[in-house]
């Protein structure tokens, strides 16, 4: 397995904040905070997963890391280099270390270009201007995702969703990245195809030592792929731990609500089921206390105070005073 810098993490994110600023017809500023001070790291050969419902801000995190959108605050260190302050030109050297696989493979390919043309852009990124060598590299990477190279002569609409998602993976591999940001890589695919992509990604991680930042709402896929999991709600992490800690000893009521709703058969869980009421509302971002307060069955006055991520007895970090101080009161243990 390849190492990060001096045996440390590949990617370190510290207190990342992202605001979206919009202006209405009267040019008044509206600020929506999509990511609100999150910190994590990703180690070589590791899959770090962020789970959450839509509106949690989980996809924004990856887009900031790839500098597809700017950050509002915090630091991001990729292979020892602080990347947030870099210009596009300065970032170019680092860009090849971090690549992305999109949710909808059909949207991720130019509908008018052949797949080969889309792949060639990534082959060119290596700096090799020799077309036949580019073609060799394209063929090789297409074979590495289990397809025959002839397929690249077609257009995106002429191949199936599962094949196109494999090609999307092949495309990002052409620049030999260290870290792949997987943005809901299976959610536009059929159930019977989902496993094919998951297994491909797992195999690639084993053979190439790739790291993944996986963003998904499908808890089965996350269970299959992740080493560590962060649960995100309205811009904040509410629970961070190893896969087993999060799936088998979930502490935060939101995590437990998600697991209950997902109706997983395999992972055993401790504690009683949590039923969340209502739905996610960006209004809650402004509150200083727990953002789940209006949906949580255990909420009380003290939940209006600011909550910080604190370690539990079983070792994961949880943003809920009750889960840390009195787990029995919320049906744990």
């Amino acid at each position, binding site marked *: 397995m390849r190492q990060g810098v001096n045996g440390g993490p590949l990617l370190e994110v510290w207190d990342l904040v992202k605001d979206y600023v919009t202006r209405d017809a009267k040019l008044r500023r509206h600020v929506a905070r999509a990511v609100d001070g999150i910190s994590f790291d990703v180690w070589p050969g590791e899959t770090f997963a962020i789970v959450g419902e839509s509106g949690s801000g989980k996809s924004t995190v990856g887009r900031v890391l*790839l500098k597809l959108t700017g950050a509002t605050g915090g630091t991001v260190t990729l292979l020892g280099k602080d990347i947030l302050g870099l210009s596009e030109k300065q970032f170019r050297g680092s*860009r090849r270390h971090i690549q992305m696989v999109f*949710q909808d493979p059909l949207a*991720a390919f130019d*509908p008018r*270009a052949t797949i080969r043309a889309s792949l060639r*852009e990534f082959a060119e990124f290596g700096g090799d201007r020799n077309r036949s060598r580019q073609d060799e590299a394209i063929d090789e990477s297409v074979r590495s995702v289990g397809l025959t190279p002839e397929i690249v002569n077609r257009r995106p609409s*002429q191949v199936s969703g599962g094949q196109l998602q494999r090609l999307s993976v092949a495309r990002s591999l052409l620049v030999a990245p260290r870290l792949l940001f997987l943005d809901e890589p299976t959610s536009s695919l059929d159930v019977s195809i989902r496993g094919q992509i998951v297994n491909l990604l797992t195999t690639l991680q084993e053979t190439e030592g790739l790291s993944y930042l996986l963003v998904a709402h499908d808890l089965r896929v996350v269970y299959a792929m992740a080493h560590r999991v962060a649960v995100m709600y309205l811009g904040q992490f509410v629970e961070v731990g190893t896969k087993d800690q999060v799936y088998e000893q979930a502490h935060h009521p939101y995590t437990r609500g998600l697991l209950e709703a997902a109706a997983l058969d395999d992972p055993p869980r401790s504690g009683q089921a949590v039923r969340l009421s209502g739905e996610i509302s960006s209004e809650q971002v402004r509150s200083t206390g727990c953002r789940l307060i209006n949906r949580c069955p255990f909420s009380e006055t003290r939940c209006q105070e600011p909550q910080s991520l604190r370690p539990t007895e079983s070792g994961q970090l949880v943003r809920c005073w009750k889960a840390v101080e009195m787990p029995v009161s919320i049906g744990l243990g």
Partner: protein
Amino acid sequence: MTSRAATRETPTRSRLGRVVRVTFRTPAYLSMAIIALVALVGPFLVRDPLGFLGGTLAAPSVEFWFGTDQFGRDIFARVVHAARLDLWVGLIAAALAVVVGMPLGALGAYRGGVSDALLLRVSESFQAFPTLLLALGIVAALGPSIPILIMVIAMVNVPVYLRLTRSAVKPLVDSDFVLAARCAGKSQAAILRRHILPNVSEIVFAQFSVNVAWAIQILAALSFVGLGVKLPTAEWGAMVRDGINYMYYGQWWISLFPGLAILATVLTLNYLSDEIRHGS
């Protein structure tokens, strides 16, 4: 499913065969082909459009299909010659408008912010004037000549392309395949050229066809009020104006045939635009 079927090429059919099939599939393409043919080779086959051929104000006959005008010129020959002029002016003016408006609109949409707002405001202030009045004013100030006419017609059409391209590009800027190109380290210019402009070209070409029609109308209108091409050049609008006084005395053919030519060309170009947009 349908998109899959639509993009699949049948390898046995040649490119030329495809062009021929498309041409004959719809009246719009066929009619456009006829008009283009008339404009291209017609002038070599008909009489001199400026020559005085005797009998003035002759009604349509076997010899003079569209009759003759007050100077005894063959109206059929003049309509055919004018086709070449009107189509050229329309094409060049619309093409100029595309060449200027499309990159500006794409740039505005892609960059956003101040430059986008500025471009938008400028084009809006252009569009605040009625197109024809604006064109009239400028031509009146600069004096009529064919290059100036082309410039003016192009200029009043630039905002159309600017805004059209801008609105077509806007959703593409945040599309996943453009983000993917950014992940591949492509520059903004390369992304515009390779991914964005090809994906908006269909919309722009549909508009192009309408705009050629529009340019021809503006040219005809300017000539009709005497600010267009100089006499005795054959131009449809000028010819309509020439004959308008004779309408009262029953010599309807002088204005009617160039008028019909304008109508047929404008309708054809508009249908063609629909075809480009919905067909293919």
